[in-house]
């Protein structure tokens, strides 16, 4: 019947019309896909900013949120400079932390295990930087720029690429220093699929050196870069450190190469700042001594790691947090007595202005790791050199100085004493310049006879305490492991006990060994 056929046809048409709704692709709406994000040329700088941000921040929301590692509960634990600091300072004679989080007391004793969550977090942070840089390099090749019609940005992008490679080399140096035999993954490594092979320390060392040498000329001159960004000064300093420790890494000393790099740094526009404390105040982005810093800001660069951690954790006991420009103290970090005793007596109020300790109500000796014994170390403060409080009492504006000129002076002195170049007279001048800045006058100056390598090791502690260098220095001087130098709680004994030499390298995290069956654990673990 007519009407019946019409009805059937209508139903059929409806069905057909619906079938055409067969499209099942959706594009993300509130985030951008890789193809679209670089249509905006501002994205290159934003991505570069993330590469630097990997050193200071923990995610895309400050101080925490949209974390880079969503699997970790405490996002503050995953911050790069905080973990680097913990791994470089806690097992040495400079610091102790009283918190009981699983894995922290272990770091203080130096008896690391492969299940230590902090070692694990730092490992992933290093490779996170590497992976991000690799992705950046892949997205900024000349072909990609041409595809997107951005060839006019080529010069700017070339500098960005050089900065990215600097950051990758920096992280690989940290990886080499902390673990030694890590895999080498660069931008040519295919993403996803197979786990990388393990490389040797020599290969990593070579890579870092060749990368830095290759990009030097594409960076701004020594001291000429924007604050917070890499330039040839930062690069020279990094290369100097890599060469300085070459004997530890690859068995062959490269002190003369380190010396040439230090010369470049010393030839730059940096100058020793007049006041030591001001190097660690809220406006320390204004000092000329900084070669490379990780900047923080109480309003715009917020994290629970970085100087938020250093300022809050070093505050405790009877310290009034308001004096440090903070909301309240976290009661965590104290200095080990060995560090305190390196300064001129009386240590509670030393003429050496670098002894920024708080001893009121505190014992010098540390009776137990998880306690509040020991002097507090309120070195990092959230007040400006004029005495004003920083912009936010929870998150300091204070930047973390990774490389500064005083470090370069001491490296010169050390290299001169090792016979790698320069002369010891110049070295003595540099050291005394630092001591004059510390004492405020010449009463702390030393004579040429007192300038020995052992003195340099101690002076590095006095000058650079709590700046993330100590473990590397102690290893270079052969004092970290073994029994030649014992400090509180070394090997979990209150007066210190010898530490087996395999602890000079951190263990590769157990989870990484499972995820990457190509890797072998470091000896002794």
């Amino acid at each position, binding site marked *: *019947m007519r009407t019946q056929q019409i*009805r059937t046809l209508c139903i059929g048409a*409806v*069905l057909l019309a*619906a079938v055409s*709704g*067969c*499209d*099942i*692709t959706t*594009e*993300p*709406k509130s*985030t*951008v*896909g*890789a193809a679209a994000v670089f249509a905006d040329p501002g*994205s290159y700088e934003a*991505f570069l*900013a*993330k590469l630097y*941000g990997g050193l*200071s*921040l923990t995610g*895309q*929301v*400050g101080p925490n949120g949209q974390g*880079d*590692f*969503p*699997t*970790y509960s405490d996002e503050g634990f995953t911050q790069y400079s905080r973990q680097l600091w913990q791994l470089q300072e806690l097992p040495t004679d400079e610091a102790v932390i009283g918190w009981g*989080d699983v894995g922290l007391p272990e770091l203080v004793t130096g008896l690391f295990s492969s299940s230590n969550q902090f070692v694990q977090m730092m490992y992933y942070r290093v490779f*996170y930087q*590497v*992976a*991000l840089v690799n992705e950046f390099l892949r997205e900024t090749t000349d072909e990609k720029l041409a595809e997107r019609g951005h060839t006019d940005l080529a010069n700017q992008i070339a500098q960005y690429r050089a900065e990215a490679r600097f950051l990758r080399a920096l992280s690989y140096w940290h990886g080499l220093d902390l673990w030694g035999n890590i*895999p080498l*993954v660069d931008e040519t*490594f295919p*993403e*996803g*699929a*197979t*786990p*990388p092979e393990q490389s040797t320390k020599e290969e990593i060392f070579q890579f870092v050196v060749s990368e830095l040498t290759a990009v030097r000329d594409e960076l701004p001159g020594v001291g000429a870069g*924007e*604050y*917070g*960004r890499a330039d040839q000064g930062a690069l020279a300093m990094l290369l100097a450190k890599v060469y300085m420790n070459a004997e530890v890494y690859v068995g062959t000393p490269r002190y003369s190469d380190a010396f040439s790099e230090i010369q470049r740094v010393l030839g730059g526009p940096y100058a020793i700042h007049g006041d030591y404390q001001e190097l660690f105040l809220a406006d320390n982005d204004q000092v000329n001594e900084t070669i490379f810093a990780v900047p923080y*800001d109480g*309003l*715009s*660069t*917020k994290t629970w790691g970085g100087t938020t951690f250093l300022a809050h954790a070093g505050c405790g006991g009877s310290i009034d947090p308001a004096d440090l420009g903070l909301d*309240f103290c976290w009661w965590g970090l104290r200095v080990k007595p060995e560090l305190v005793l390196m300064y001129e007596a009386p240590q509670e109020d030393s003429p050496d202005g670098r002894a920024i300790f708080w001893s009121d109500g505190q014992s010098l000796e540390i009776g137990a790791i998880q306690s509040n014994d020991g002097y507090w170390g309120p070195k990092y403060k959230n007040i400006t050199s004029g005495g004003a409080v920083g912009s936010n009492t929870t998150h300091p504006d204070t930047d973390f100085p990774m490389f500064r000129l005083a470090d370069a002076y001491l490296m010169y002195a050390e290299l001169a004493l090792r016979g790698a170049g320069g002369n010891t007279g110049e070295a003595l001048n540099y050291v005394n310049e630092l001591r004059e800045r510390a004492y405020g006058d010449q009463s702390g100056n030393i004579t040429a006879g007192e300038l020995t390598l052992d003195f340099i090791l101690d002076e590095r502690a006095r000058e650079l305490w709590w700046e993330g260098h100590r473990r590397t220095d102690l290893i270079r001087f052969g004092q970290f492991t073994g029994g030649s130098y014992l400090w509180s709680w070394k090997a979990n004994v209150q007066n210190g006990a010898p530490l087996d030499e395999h602890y000079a390298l951190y263990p590769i995290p157990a989870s990484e060994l*499972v*995820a*990457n*069956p190509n890797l072998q654990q470091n000896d002794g673990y």
Partner: protein
Amino acid sequence: MHRVRVCLVALIATVAAAGQLAAQATGTVRGRTVNATTNEPIALVTVRIADRTAQSDSDGRFVVSGLAAGTYAVRANVLGYRQVTDTVSVGAGQTSEIEIPMYPMALALEALVVTGYGEQERRDLTGVVDEVPAETFNTGRVIAPEELIKGKVAGVQVAEANGGEPGGGISIRIRGGTSVTSSNEPLYVIDGVPMPVGGGLSAGRSPLNFLNPNDIESFTILKDASSTAIYGSQGANGVVMITTKSGRGVRDTGWDLTYRGTFSGSVVSSRPALLTATEFRTAVQNQAPDLIDYLSNADTDWNQEVQQSAFGQEHTMVVAGGTQSTNVRASFGYLSQEGVVQASKNERLSLNVAFNQLLFDDRLSLQANVVGSRVADRFTPGGVIGNANNFAPTQPITEEGSPYGGYFEWDATRTAVNPVAQINRISDEGTTYRSVGNVTAEYDLAFVEGLSATARFGYLATSSERRFFAPSTDKNQINRGLYGTVSRSNPTEYGSLFDGFLTYNRMFDVHSLNLTAGYAYQQRRQDSPSFYAQDLSSDLLGLNGVPSAELQQTSLFVEESKLASWFARANYSLNDRYLFTATIRADGSSKFGAGNQWGTFPSAAVAWRVSEERFMDGADFLSDLKLRLSWGKNGNQAFSSYAQYKQYVYGDPQAQVQFGNDFVSTVRPSAADPNIKWEETSSWNLGIDYGLWNNRVFGAIEFYTKETKDLIFDVIVAAGTNLSNSVITNVGTMKNKGVELTLNAGVFEGGRDGFTWDANFNFAYNKNELVQINPFAGGAEQLLWGPFISGGVGTQVQVLRPGYPINSFFVFQHKLDSDGTPIVGTDLEMYEDLNDDGVIDQDDRRPFESPAPDWIIGHTSLMRFQSFDLSFTMLAQIGSYVYNNVASSTGFYDQLRNSDRPNNLHRSVLENEFVTPQYQSDVYVEDASFLRLQNIELGYTLGGVLNGMRLFGVVQNVFTITGYSGIDPTSTVTGIDNNIYPRSRTFTGGLSVTF
């Protein structure tokens, strides 16, 4: 009581005409089977007179002819009704009329069952389909509709997400969970419209709260692969189909108005075991005497102060009516229920309209259902229950001159906060508007007999809002450095779907064929805008305005998803005895990566109705025996969209990087697996349906095994190979196997006025095992899992380890002394050194029990005597374990020092005498097996008042028998008891009346 009416006129006419009519050899019996209580016709009734059988049609009418004159016994039989025997006399050449009223069995099984995309006769089912009709729902004050079926279906575990919160979120596990990171919730289908994961969007409570339980006709649970395969990549966790009441029942013209109203009162049924003020003072004196000066002299039971007797009421008005070809049912409902903790409340205003229309000579059936509601929630501010457990009992509630709104607060920052102050000063509310509806047209095509076409358009729309305000003088805000917070989020969700399918039914000879094939398309979009302001300059605007604030953050996230599917099903039965079913579904989803865009999900099943076989003729007691075997595959795609894309996320203004004197925003690419796909489950099911003594006792036994592979995990990848240390990808495998047993019995059958007792028992056993989580690990890797417990930082007490159930507790083995008390001392003295290495560390923790119960047992009894009815439901779980986090985080003396001011302790400290915390001790993993009388209802029906009135009273949560020391052994489905909302005992009374 039977009533047999023989038509007097016919009898007289027969006698009168006996001599006049030619003597004929046979007579006929014509009759009608009706439901004795509602007077509605019953279809498909098998009526046996002598050796002749007939089946009643959709109008209940049947005809049996060819009977010699005489008196015969009549037997009428149909599933769901009590068998009726009667007598009828037949005269030669005459027709006798008989009406057979049949009483429904209380635990009835409908003859027609709703399955995916269609209906099927229950007797022909080859898969596992369990139905819960409205008569057997849990009674009393029920807010979230999932509560209605708790304890009613074997293998279905219904667990509250937050204890006894009114209308709180609910998790349903059908035959154990099949996923670890994706949702384990079944697919909810409301009147044929599939809902988003877990029921969809909610402002904080169960998303299905928009349904008025009084409007639900039945729940149909699809459990095995054969019945769920038609839902393809959404069916791996089972399917819960909710059918709302329609006007179909009202055949006669006219209108019906029904009102049902209830009032209820609830009290807390158990309190946590904490120290009293005196005991607390003693503890402080002995353990932390330097803190004694902080204590005041009050005696406050904080839990009592924040709890209340909760009152509630519900009113539902239903208007139903129709004509021969039109049916309408509209219901209006209002519910208001407070929670037993102050400041929590749930209010619902709901409207449900069902419309049925037959057109074109009954060829076209048009059905429209719309459910809409407004739900207003008030939430107890977060932290109140924890603070009530922690705050020192020696402190007063108010303090003169206090700057915190007059309430007493400690004068330090790392402390507990006055919970009464929080309840009275913080606001946390939500409102949800939700509507789900569909229009379905089914047309019987004329040119092919038995072919019909169905088209369904469905929609779902949710708009919700969550508002929060805490004043700047609230102590918790000050402690955390927030100084006042106001926030509001407005998530919305919209979805539409289209289903089109053809159905073909054919019966010829001994064969019966039923085919369905069709196409379905659905799309959804969810928008989540929100803003948040902190450090407020003024408290005057409260919830409704934003004063200038130090920190303001806004966020917006939009997520879309699409699903296109083709499906087909064939049912074939031979001789009414041998049944075969095959289904297949192909799903293409926007969530799957490019390499795996389409997935195929087949299933097959066979069944053998043994009781129809001739060799079973002697076994009279066995009225039904059917063996079933099914196999199938289905999937789970309940993970977020866009996981296959490397998404670039912009950084917010607090996460900028300093370049020179400027700050630059960052952008970050995320790790992604471009080939991500669904989690796939294949399962086998062997079932036996049985019925004894004319189905006076009936039920089923099921054996099943399920294997799920491609479980989605955030897997730690080799460092440097992807843009994070982990990536979401398909890696794991898991197994579930178990047994289910259902028994329904008509224990006493007293007829209309005698004592009747129907009972249902269901037993289910499930064993879960995780097989693999990382392909590199060769089965050896384990992952610490579960929520972070209260106490320590980032401590987890559960683990995923291959070879053990998921979410197994991962704890040290605590050594016990001779009278069973745990030993206190050094780590080595307290815990077993399982690997004998002389050190107690993470390697000495071992998997120990899991929160999932081994056995779930439910029992329902329905009794009737004259005008009274009594029913009760019991529920038991055996073998579930719970980690008592309240005890572990407050049951040690150092807890007095953990904060700046002493916090209250758990009573277990008086027994255990722990000084330092022992979060990872197995002392806190307690056996939470329990037996609970879930509800008991007594009702009285007044005949003759209007069209029927029933008065009833219900008590819920009557008693619980358990060895668990916390307040509730059913603390969430994760197994961690951490300050959950307390459970309550509720007394409800009400009436329902039809005008």
